[in-house]
């Protein structure tokens, strides 16, 4: 991971790696996370998600 040996090194990474599309500065990653989180939170507050009236 450190030396860049991609074939014979043990490269530890999680399943969520399939969703990573860009190398970014940590501050931007956090901004993106917060933005998506807030958007998703708003979506869930829509009336269509109400199960009981």
């Amino acid at each position: 991971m450190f030396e860049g040996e991609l074939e014979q090194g043990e490269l530890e990474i999680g399943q969520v790696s399939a969703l990573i599309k860009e190398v970014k500065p940590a501050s931007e990653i956090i901004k993106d996370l917060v933005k998506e989180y807030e958007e998703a939170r708003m979506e869930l507050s829509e009336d269509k998600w109400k199960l009981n009236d």
Partner: protein
Amino acid sequence: MIWCSPWELASAVSNAGGLGVIGAGSMYPDVLKIHVKRCKTATSKPFAVNLPLLYPDLDQHIQTVIEEKVPIVFTSAGSPSKWTEILKKEGITVVHVVSSVKFALKAQECGVDAVVAEGFEAGGHNGREETTTLCLIPAVKKELNIPLIAAGGIGTGRAMLAAFALGADAVQIGSRFVASVESSAHTKFKQEVLKIKEGGTKLMMKQLAPVRMMKNGFYEKVQEAESRGATIDELFHLLGRGRAKKVCLKANWNKANWKSDKCRL
């Protein structure tokens, strides 16, 4: 976050409003000291150090976090019974990483301040129970009385929201930051991470110490060994070679420790 989380990443995360964690498992004792000192100058916010409890020179790492007054320590890969009290006496907040309800409760008994419960999706060392984050978090939440941090499969804002819906008080994000500018993973590895598709990682070496890894040449060797029924000794040898030669700084992890029940990885 072994190999990937230097002071540059930890301080950047803390400065951006998260809690940055220095991964000490891949650092020599004097290297950790430098990273902690630099992190302190790079951020005025709290940051943490992750100490895998099977680390060969753990005493020296413990001494560093105490001397340097690191505010928070995440312990993993071992039993928190011995070290929690020692760290807490020094005023350090202790968080222990587990992958089951059973070990979450043990950690709570040991007096830790919070627990990270990490599901099957996570990279690196993983639980034998293979419980997914979706099932693990509500189960731990039901039993645990201290703060619960969810991990495993969380790399998006949507997953963060889902974790809170499951009962988590906070989330821990690893893999996403491997592909950050500040991560110390090799540039080639970062580029490789971007190419990983669905199914591109697998949990291997369940006999020895389950670990989720990217599918590559090393993975194929492990798979070949496992499918012909290789012994634990053979797997250990393979793992040792893969890590020592190509990835890891230090291959002198005590073999007995890997097999010990106490030292669950």
